[in-house]
Structures are given as structure tokens and as C-alpha cells.
């Protein structure tokens, strides 16, 4: 039998993407389409005193200029992560309901025009006057007023967590590390700008929206506008990158719908690149302090992990600093607290590796420092602190593979040849350093029931439907594989139908859960069809399989046969024709295990990096990265490796390039463009080796999948920062690590 799961299948949407025929949300041709442009607030805090729309309205070709006076009251909807399967606004605030301004870029008017050019031009003609008020946008401005919230992360997490007595553990340690790390805000900057196309027919609304979850869009817009979800259909097949930015549903989506209703025409609202910095949240500015206590042999006695960050005026949002970071090591004591500064920014949001990207960075840089001080190899230090159980609960891991990741990653990287002393290796002008870090990302069961439908035709081909969409993870490819596997069909005989809320409900594939949760439903749907036909054959006197135990019947290429006598069998088609079945179909459902499932749920990995630091100029270039990951069962190594590689390069980027700079005086982001917010280009990306270590997991669903979307980013930044330290002997405590952070550590006699 040719296994379909685990095969390096090429993407099912590859042809559409390389020929340009894939239509993204802003590319749907519609008669009478009008273009909407948001006018954003220029001040970070204050009140709108007047809006003069006359010049814009008279510019010609302008269908409407909407201000708060033209908008209906919109319902207040709580911020709940979209993974939970309900309405999921990115912030509880909805703009254009009153005259208050809470953050720069907040929509204050919308221009709808016949052409893209005219919409933009007319938007520039809208005159808005403000009575500005002092704003707070940075930790530096608000530290004195920081508070400890009850819950963070959309109510997902408590702000405080502890096990054992961390104060005692630190006090009784032989050795300690106390390190504080500062993280610049990050903006996802998916390459496809946020785009919503809204079409009304009577009281029914169709949305084409670049999102991570079409169901979340449907339910959120329904909740905000007080509509029945049955009247809203969201159609989205292709999404040009998301990385968490499209996990929640942001105001522009509903604004597009309202604008379309106002002008009684289809409306497309595209957020400009500059507006991409004020339209969908961000990874918040944050500072994390990690204190480690350890015995001489390297065993951790306690971890204390504190975070302070900026949230919005409306919501208590912080990405959690210490989910995985509190679970990675067997320290008997842990304590962590999140504190928040209320700032005049949007509510921050999920950003690839939410929480862990910064939290594990902090922990793993502190661990590196500890290894140096103890004189223990960094890999060995991790090995000595491995935990057989989730240290927070005492439950066994559903699966781990952590030690294997550390071992195999080190082997592939050639870690053993490393001279542990910093600043010893030099190639011409370049200081060479190597570093490593652990990676981990939680598996969370917050989702609701997942559904998929499988229909098999008598010609032996199948269509499987589920309300998912493809934003680059390869999910539609692995879902096709899972369906083909369960049906016993070749890949080419299965077509996945997706990107339509009228299809069976699937949750937002966020938090690295997409493959795990939706594939489970697809598996059950497809398996139900197969089981039905197998049972029919076994009970059919006319079938060569009559009387066989269905458990002993396998299906390959659409032909059912006895496992131990492949000659005896028949095809689905033969059976179905005999029974006058044109097709047969089944709904598959999967419910997640309960939240209190008695297992530790974490995906593990290990990251290694080699960097070159210019000894004179302080520039850092990454030469090579190796990551070893244990993501449960790998449905498609090709797409899994790509996800992990992309994540690892995101970690590189977080470590060395990405930072949004707040102009605290103006309360505005100061580098809101792709020319100034630096993401890696081809020349920045080294060769990346990804090692996949399969581990059996029978807790995380029928296929044992854990997820690959985020863990690649976790720890890769720390491995690079640790490598920079190894190259230079200098530890930078600020991300991104830039030239000015390193110059003071690089010899320069001539400076005087």
C-alpha cells in the first residue's frame, strides 16, 4: 500500500500560485465595484472636533464619505481568541462610534470612490481636526502606572503562575543568573495587505476577506452587526500570509461591510502598507526579566520570569511569556507575573510563536549564560534539566522527543567540535560564533468541534469539504493527503473544497493547530465513507469480500481487498454500481480532548545557529541554521519543513532585524513601511537544515499530529543571540540586535 500520509506531496494549490491564477481576496472581479479607503487618526489620543468632508465629496467619482455620523451603532463583542470558535474581534473597541481617539491610525472616516486612485486622493482631502491629549505609547512612559491584570491573552491565561517556592529556590541556589531582555514591537507585515471585499444582496452579505479563519469572520461580523450568521457567507481560498495578524477579526472587515451597505455597491477595502501598522495589532513592546537558580551540577532550583508590556486602552492583552518557558525544565519552583502598561496603541495580538518567541528567547539566553558560568556545555545543561513530566502539573508528556531533538540537532550541526570559549574563532574580519537553544510550543485544546464532509463518487473520486482556507501553511495539501489516506485513494482522485463558510465548520487554524484539528475531522469523514463501503462489501453476497472481517479489509487505489489475500477484492465503483449508488457521503466530526486532559502537551525542538559578526563594523550575518523538531506525526515532510524553515528565519529576523519604533512624542509608529521595517531579504537567509523527529502521540487526535506552524520561530532567535555572544563575548539584551549594540564590544583602538 502506498502511504499518502507522510509523503512529500507537492502543494495542491501550487499550479494556481505559480501561474498567477490563484485569486486572493482583493482580486475578485465584481460588477460595479467601488473602492474604500480608510482615513486614520493623526493623533494618538484626543477628540475629533470636526470633520470636513466637502472637498472629498466634491472631488468627483466619490460615492460616499462616511464618518461616525453615517455608521450605525455596532455591538460590543468581547475579545475571545478565534481558536475558541466564536466571534473574535481583535479588540473590544470599534472605531467610528464616537469622537474619541485612542490610537494613531484609528479609522475616523472612510471614503468610497469609483477608482482606487480617486479613493486615495479623496481620503487625503478629508479634513479632520483634533483636540489632542497627552498619550502613552511605550513602557518607558507608563512603567510607573503598570498593573497586574487578572487574565491576559484574550482571557486565555492567568497573569500569574507559580509552582513551588521560587524565592526559596533562588535563595538556596549555588549560582544564579539575573537577566533582563527588551523586545521591540513587531508587525507581521504579511505580504498581502489586509483586504476585504463586501457584497450585499438584500440582507445577505458575502465577504471575501484575507483572514486566518472564515468562520471567525462570519461570526464576528454577525455579532458586531447583530446579524444572523446564516445571512453572512465568507469566501476565501487564498490568503497572502498571516502569521497571526489575521487570526482575529479587525475593524476594517466590518467597516467594509458597512461601507458597502451604505453605497449599495460591492466595496473593496484594502489597507495600505502604512496602514498595515495600525490596522491589526502587533507583537507588543515588552521587557522580560528571568532569574535562574542552579546547583553546581546544573540542576535548576528555581525560575522567576517577569514581563512588563504595553497593551491598549481597552483590553488586557499580553502574549504569555511563560507557557512553554515554565514547562521546559524540571525546576522545582517557578513563578512568573505579567504586568501591563495601558498605552495608546491597538490591542496587541498573536504574532507567530505568540508568547513563546519572546518568552523562550529570554529563558534560553539566560540558560546560555548559566551554562557559561557553570562551565557546562549548553546542550548538556538542557539534558540535565529534562523533565519526564510536565513540571507544572506532574502529568506525563503526551509525547516528547526533546532529548532526541537536542542530540540529533547537535549532531547535524557539528556541535561537539565547538570551542566553548567566546571570541576564539575568526575568519578574516569576521568573528564566528555558534549558539543553541531549546524550542517548545504548546498544544492547546481550546477549539470546538471540527467538521468535514467526504463524498465519494462511483467513479472512485472524492470531494472533501471543510470551511478552512489556505494561508501558506500547506494545510489544504495535508488535508487532501489525509482524506486520500483514509479513503484509500490516490492523491489525484481527491479534491479538497474549502474557503467557504457554507462548508462544514472548521475552526481558525491558529496556534499551530490547523493540521491537527481539521485533519482529524477530515480523517473521520473520509474513514466513515470507507468504513461504510467496506461494511457493505463484507455484507454483500455478490462481493468477493463477502463475509470478511471488515478490520481485515484494506483499500488502496480505490480497490478494497483482503489484507492477507490482495487478490480477493473489488473496487469501490464496482460495489457502488451494484448497489445503484451514484455517490455516498459522510460527515466527520472531531471534538478536542478536555482541557484538563491529564497529559503535558508541548511540542519540542532544538535550534542551532552559526553567525559571523564583522569585527570592525558590528554587522551580524547568519551563516547556517539547524533545527530539530518533534511535531508528532508529520503529514507531509516537504510542507512541514517549509513551515519550520520559515519559522526559523522569522526567529532570525526577530533577533537581528525587526522592530517597529514608536515615536513617543507623536504617539505614532515611526517606521511604518517595508523600507524601514526590516524583514529579511534573500541575501539575509542562510541555508537552513530541518530535522524532523517523529514521535507517537495518541492524545492529540486520531493522527497524532502536534503542529509545525510556530515552533520553528521559538528558540531560533535565542540560538542566534547566543551565537553572537559566543562570537564576541558580549551579550546583547535588546532585540533586534543591531550594529550599535555590538560596537562597544568590538575592539577599536583608534576611537581614543
Amino acid at each position, binding site marked *: 500500500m502506498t502511504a499518502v500520509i507522510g509523503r512529500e506531496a507537492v502543494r495542491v494549490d501550487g499550479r494556481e500560485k505559480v501561474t498567477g491564477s490563484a485569486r486572493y481576496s482583493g482580486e475578485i472581479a465584481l460588477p460595479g465595484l467601488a473602492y474604500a479607503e480608510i482615513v486614520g487618526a*493623526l493623533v494618538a489620543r484626543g477628540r475629533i472636533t470636526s470633520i470636513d468632508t466637502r472637498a472629498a465629496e466634491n472631488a468627483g467619482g466619490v460615492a460616499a464619505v462616511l464618518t461616525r455620523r453615517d455608521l450605525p451603532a455596532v455591538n460590543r463583542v468581547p475579545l475571545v481568541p478565534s481558536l475558541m470558535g466564536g466571534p473574535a474581534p481583535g479588540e473590544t473597541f470599534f472605531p467610528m462610534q464616537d469622537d474619541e481617539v485612542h490610537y494613531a491610525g484609528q479609522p475616523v472616516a472612510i471614503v468610497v470612490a469609483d477608482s482606487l*486612485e480617486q479613493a*486615495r*486622493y479623496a481620503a*487625503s482631502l478629508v479634513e479632520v481636526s483634533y483636540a489632542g491629549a497627552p498619550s502613552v505609547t511605550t513602557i518607558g512612559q507608563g512603567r510607573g502606572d503598570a498593573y497586574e491584570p487578572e487574565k491576559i491573552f484574550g482571557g486565555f491565561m492567568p497573569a500569574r503562575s507559580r509552582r513551588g517556592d521560587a524565592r526559596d529556590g533562588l535563595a538556596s541556589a549555588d549560582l544564579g543568573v539575573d537577566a533582563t531582555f527588551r523586545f521591540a514591537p513587531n508587525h507581521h507585515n504579511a505580504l498581502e495587505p489586509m483586504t476585504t471585499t463586501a457584497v450585499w444582496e438584500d440582507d445577505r452579505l458575502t465577504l471575501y476577506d484575507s483572514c486566518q479563519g472564515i468562520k471567525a469572520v462570519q461570526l464576528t461580523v454577525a455579532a458586531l452587526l447583530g446579524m444572523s450568521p446564516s445571512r453572512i457567507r465568507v469566501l476565501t481560498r487564498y490568503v497572502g500570509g498571516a502569521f497571526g495578524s489575521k487570526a482575529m477579526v479587525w475593524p476594517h472587515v466590518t467597516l467594509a461591510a458597512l461601507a458597502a451597505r451604505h453605497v449599495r455597491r460591492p466595496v473593496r477595502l484594502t489597507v495600505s502598507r*502604512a496602514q498595515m501598522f495600525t490596522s491589526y495589532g502587533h507583537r507588543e513592546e515588552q521587557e522580560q526579566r528571568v532569574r535562574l537558580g542552579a546547583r553546581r551540577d546544573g540542576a535548576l532550583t528555581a525560575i522567576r520570569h517577569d514581563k512588563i508590556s504595553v497593551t491598549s486602552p481597552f483590553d488586557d492583552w499580553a502574549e504569555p511569556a511563560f507557557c512553554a518557558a515554565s514547562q521546559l525544565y524540571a525546576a522545582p519552583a517557578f513563578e512568573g507575573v505579567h504586568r501591563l502598561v495601558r498605552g495608546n496603541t491597538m490591542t496587541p495580538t498573536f504574532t507567530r510563536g505568540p508568547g513563546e518567541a519572546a518568552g523562550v528567547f529570554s529563558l534560553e539566553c539566560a540558560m546560555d549564560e548559566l551554562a557559561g558560568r557553570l562551565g557546562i556545555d549548553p546542550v548538556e545543561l538542557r539534558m540535565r534539566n529534562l523533565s519526564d513530566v510536565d513540571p507544572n502539573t506532574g502529568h506525563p508528556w503526551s509525547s516528547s522527543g526533546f532529548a532526541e531533538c537536542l542530540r540529533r540537532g547537535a549532531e547535524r550541526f557539528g556541535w561537539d567540535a565547538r570551542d566553548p570559549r567566546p571570541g576564539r574563532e575568526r575568519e578574516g*574580519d569576521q568573528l564566528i560564533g555558534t549558539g543553541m537553544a531549546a524550542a517548545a510550543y504548546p498544544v492547546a485544546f481550546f477549539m470546538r468541534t471540527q467538521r468535514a464532509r467526504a463524498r465519494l463518487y462511483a467513479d472512485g473520486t472524492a470531494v472533501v469539504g471543510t470551511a478552512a482556507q489556505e494561508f501558506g501553511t500547506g494545510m489544504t495539501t495535508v488535508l487532501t493527503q489525509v482524506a486520500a489516506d483514509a479513503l484509500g485513494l490516490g492523491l489525484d482522485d481527491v479534491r479538497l473544497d474549502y474557503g467557504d463558510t457554507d462548508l462544514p465548520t472548521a475552526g481558525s487554524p491558529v496556534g499551530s493547530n490547523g493540521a491537527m484539528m481539521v485533519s482529524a475531522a477530515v480523517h473521520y469523514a473520509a474513514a466513515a465513507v470507507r468504513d461504510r463501503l467496506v461494511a457493505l462489501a463484507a455484507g454483500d453476497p455478490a462481493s468477493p469480500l463477502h463475509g470478511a472481517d471488515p478490520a481485515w479489509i484494506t483499500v488502496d487505489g480505490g480497490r478494497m481487498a483482503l489484507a492477507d489475500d490482495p487478490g480477493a477484492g473489488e473496487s469501490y465503483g464496482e460495489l457502488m454500481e451494484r448497489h445503484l449508488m451514484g455517490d455516498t457521503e459522510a460527515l466527520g466530526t472531531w471534538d478536542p480532548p478536555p482541557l484538563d486532559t491529564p497529559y503535558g502537551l508541548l511540542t519540542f525542538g532544538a535550534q542551532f545557529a552559526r553567525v559571523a559578526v564583522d569585527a*570592525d*563594523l*558590528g*554587522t551580524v*550575518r547568519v551563516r547556517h541554521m539547524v533545527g530539530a523538531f518533534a511535531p508528532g506525526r508529520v503529514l507531509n515532510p516537504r510542507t512541514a519543513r517549509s513551515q519550520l524553515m520559515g519559522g526559523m528565519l522569522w526567529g532570525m529576523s526577530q533577533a*537581528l*532585524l525587526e522592530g517597529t*519604533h514608536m*515615536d513617543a*512624542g*507623536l504617539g*505614532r509608529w*515611526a*517606521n*511604518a*513601511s517595508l*523600507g*524601514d521595517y*526590516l524583514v*529579511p*531579504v*534573500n*541575501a*539575509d537567509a542562510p541555508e537552513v537544515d530541518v530535522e524532523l523527529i517523529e514521535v507517537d502521540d495518541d492524545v492529540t487526535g486520531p493522527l497524532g499530529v502536534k503542529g509545525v506552524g510556530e515552533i520553528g520561530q521559538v528558540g531560533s532567535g535565542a540560538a542566534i543571540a547566543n551565537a553572537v555572544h559566543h562570537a564576541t563575548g558580549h551579550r546583547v539584551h535588546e532585540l*533586534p540586535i*543591531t*550594529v*550599535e549594540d555590538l*560596537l562597544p564590544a568590538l575592539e*577599536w*583602538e*583608534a*576611537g*581614543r
Partner: protein
Amino acid sequence: MRPFAYARADDVDTAIATVLARPDGEFLAGGTTEIDLVRQDVLRPGLLVDINDLPLDRVDDLPDGGVRIGGLARMSDVAEAPGVAERFPVISEALLQGASPQLRTMASMAGNLCQRVRCGYFRDAVSPCNKRDPGSGCAAITGFHRGHAVLGTSDKCIATHPSDAAVALVALDAVVRTRGPHGERAVPIDEFFLLPGDTPEREHPLEHGELITAIDVPGAATARRSSYLKVRDRASYEFALVSVAAAMDVRYRTVADIRLALGGVATKPWRARTAERSLLGGPATREAFAEAARRELAPATPLPQNEFKVELAQRAIVRALTALADGDEEGGTR
């Protein structure tokens, strides 16, 4: 995007006349800065006169061993022109590092000299900016200025001149040839770029309707041994934090000739004459390079976020000159 009229000229005189016919007329060459800034509502031309069909795209050798670069020659073509690549490697290197391949294909040399600053406050069309809106103030001085200038600044403007190619051309004493309503003239390139002073809105002496027809690079044997060093956060496709255009002739371990200019640190492409004077006739040693660099940067006026550029520029100068000196020695010709 603000509406504008468009006309396409076949000859230079018509192009000039057409621009002159309207006070808000402007030339349109590669468009890589101009179209961007019109869309941002930073530039507001009423008429764009497309000059891309004008026969100003040649790269010709000059009798003195120099080269005449047409104002409409594209960055990519100039970088690969044999006369430039062989005799003036610093120009080629600056061009190749100056933009992405797509932008280099589009952007003209004249436009490269005239490109506008990358200061985010200038480009956002709304912040206080004396360059865009004289008298409105400078948001960068009190705001985000990591990328801004430390030399040639004023209390009105600290925006860095963004061109790489211009840095090389300034080092080589190029001459900007123009044609306009008052005829033709030749402006030494160092005078072409104006310091912001109290009038940051004036970046060069071109009059309305005056067109850069060519850039002459005089022959210079020293330029054969020249290089462009660009320091940036990203490995490519980014403006310079600091850059160094250097040409140096070392004889008997002594600096016989030197041309040095800096990018990324000043409000104009910065000819490092202080450093040149310090080095000329002296020893070609790392110590001498460092001392010259120190003197060049001594008048720097950094702000908190760009203070690192003062040291980074010195380090880059030393690196660039050391590499040229080492190359000379390895060549073994002297």
C-alpha cells in the same frame, strides 16, 4: 492619488518647454522616487513630463580617460558599462549596492542624484517637516532618527542623503551638466548638493525646468583602485547606515592620491576632505587611516539614536582604506 497631467517628450527642448509651461510641471524619469512620493501625497505635480524617450542614456568615454554618463542612463546599465566598471569600480559597486535589480533597471542617473530623502517624517506627508513644509519643524530631531545624519545637519533638518552612487561621484569630482531655460551649465557635483541650513527644501541648485543631461566623471588613474563599502542592517536592499567611497594610490607605503566620500552619515554625499588632507603624502597605515577618520568625524553632531554612526563611520573608513592599501601591497606593483 492626486490627479496630474502627463505628456511624453521626444526631444530635450520640448521637454523643458513643457515643464516650464506650468509652474507645477516636473520631469518624470525612472519614477522610482517620484511616483512613490506622488502617491504618498508628498509631491504634488500638476504635470509630469515623461522624458524617458530622450536620447540621454548613453555612457561615453571622454578624451581624458573619464566617462560621460547620460542623465537618463539607467543605474543597471551604468554599473555594467565597461568604461565604468573597469576605470571606476567604485561607481559600479555603489550602483549595484544602491537598489534592487528592478529599481536599478528603472532608475536614471539624474533621478538618482535628485532622489528625495528617506526620512519617515518627510515621507509620511503629515508630520512636521521643514523640507516638505518649510517652517513646520523637524520631527526627526526629537523623534526617531537612528538613520539620520551626523554631518552637515542643521536645526531645521537632519535627513540623510540617500544616494549611494552620488557618494562615489562626489569622491571622483564629477560634474553635473544641465540644460534649462537659461542655457547649459556645468556644476561641480560637490556644489550640486546643498546643505540644509535654513532652507532644507532646497536640495540642489536646479531651476524649474532645468534638466540634468549628463554627469561627467573626469579621468583619474587612482579611481581604478577604488571601492564602495556599504554598511547596513540587512544584507541587501537597504539604505546605508554608513558607506564609504574610496580611491587611493599608495606608493612606497605613502598615500600618493586619495579620494574619500561618505554616505549615510550626512545631509549630502559627504566629501571627506579633512581626512584626505590628513592622509595625503603620509603613511598608508591603519593608524593614519584611523586618525584621518577621527578628524573627519570630529565635527559630527550626533543625536542619541545615531551617535553610533560617528564611530561606525570611522571604522568603515579604516576598513575601506585598509582593504585598498592591502590590495596595493598584494598587487606588488609599488
